[in-house]
């Protein structure tokens, strides 16, 4: 693996493979992501976008190759350090992954409790973040009683609450109408201009068009040469 020759590289993937049985979900991925990048991972259904994000937050182990995050090699991270690693990310999951039997407030507060914040701060912070996604009225609702778009907005709120270094967003506006999507997009922009690194996996060309960012294109688990993308 070549030495990191750039102090600003926050994520580096080197010859990364991910296999499920015989299938290559990802094949030979080489990718550098720099601090404060705004990266779109584009590609059709089943291309491996979600899988790529999963490898970053150790949702799955790589099959082959190396991933460095902040100079830390993921294949050498001890079990005890995984929670710390995950706290550097804010993650918007494609299927939201909200806890059904906890209220919206509890779901979001969890991220802050995990890093040991005070109860008072949590109260204030959760309320303010819910306001920014327009969901303050649902603070005591349980996720299964929310509409698809509402759940997605809660997922976004949870991801940005902990002020993470890197935001991983898997189809963050897929269930949203144009207007709500715009609110979320502005939120992501704001987070980015605050110095955060954003990685968005999406099949939605419109979303890509609406923000200036770097775009990579996946097809059948392989990174395509940039010219293949016409935005």
């Amino acid at each position, binding site marked *: 693996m070549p030495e990191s020759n750039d102090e600003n590289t926050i994520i580096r993937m080197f010859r990364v493979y991910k296999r499920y049985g015989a299938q290559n979900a990802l094949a030979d991925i080489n990718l550098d992501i720099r601090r404060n990048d705004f990266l779109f991972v584009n590609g059709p259904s089943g291309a491996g976008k979600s899988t790529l994000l999963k490898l970053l937050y150790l949702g799955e182990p790589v099959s082959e190759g190396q991933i460095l995050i902040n100079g830390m090699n993921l294949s050498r991270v001890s079990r005890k350090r995984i929670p710390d690693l995950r706290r550097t990310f804010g993650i918007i999951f494609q299927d939201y992954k909200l806890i059904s039997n906890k209220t919206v407030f509890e779901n979001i507060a969890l991220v802050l409790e*995990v890093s040991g914040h005070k109860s008072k701060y949590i109260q204030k912070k959760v309320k303010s973040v819910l306001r920014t996604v327009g969901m303050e009225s649902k603070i005591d609702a349980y996720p299964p009683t929310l509409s698809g778009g509402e759940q997605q907005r809660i997922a976004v709120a949870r991801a940005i609450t902990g002020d993470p270094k890197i935001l991983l967003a898997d189809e963050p506006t897929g269930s949203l109408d144009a207007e709500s999507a715009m609110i979320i997009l502005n939120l992501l922009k704001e987070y980015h201009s605050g110095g955060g690194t954003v990685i968005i996996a999406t099949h939605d060309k419109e979303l890509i068009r609406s923000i200036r960012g770097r775009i990579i294109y996946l097809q059948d688990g392989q990174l395509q040469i940039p010219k293949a993308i016409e935005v």
Partner: protein
Amino acid sequence: MIFFVKRAIKDMNGNRFINAVTIVTIALSIFIVSAFGLFFHNVNNLMDTWKKGVRILAYVKKHTKESQITELKDKIQATQGVASLTFISKEESLNQMKDHMKRQAAIFKKLKENPLPDVFEIQMVGIQQGMDDIEILATRIESLPHVSSVEYGQKWLGRFMTMFNLIKFSGFALCGTFLMASVFIVANTIRLLFYSKQEEIEIMRLVGASDNFIKAPFYVEGIIQGVLGGVIGVTALLITYLLISSNMEQGILVDFLSIRFLPIKICLGIILCGIVAGWLGCYLSLKQILKY
């Protein structure tokens, strides 16, 4: 810590039905094991009372002098296994016999001379001996000078001992099995409960919760369940006991045996078992779920 307890209680409130099932399962298991314990505790007591009735009679040879009898008394007293002894002179024996065999009183009227021997009635030390121990002691006493012969027990005593051993043996075996089964059942009830929480645990891990953060409230929950289950179980047993024993008072048993409740120490021990079961259930489940 308080934070985790709060989270645990909140969580238990949210899963009321499942928690109730777990607690009742623990309570039932504990009730059964301790009911069995109580049963054997009482059978044991009963047996002990009876066993205290087991005596060895040592007949003194005829024409033994009084000084020799005193000497013999000391010797028997000094024998290992002897708790106390009573001397019954031949006169006392005859009187007893007369009282006892009133119907055959005719026999005694015709006696000129007391044909009975003097006798020592020997109480044994401890109450745990089987038939074998009694036999050994008897042989030892028979070999003493001036002892003509030794008599002990009746035929039923032998049976009684055998039965006591049978009950005791089965009792321990059953109690042991119960205990293991209860721990298994409780642990698995909690484990099944965890299946409904797997998703929750997975999500918590994904948002960066440490293992301890995840585990703590589960342990608190398991221990609360154990305590509640244990207390309910023991209380149910106490109520049952009170009901039964108050019924018995009016029944056949009043005269010579009263059933007793388990000592407080054992009650606390039982509740501790409940806690251990709850804890163990958590431990096993968490170990499995948090393995990666």
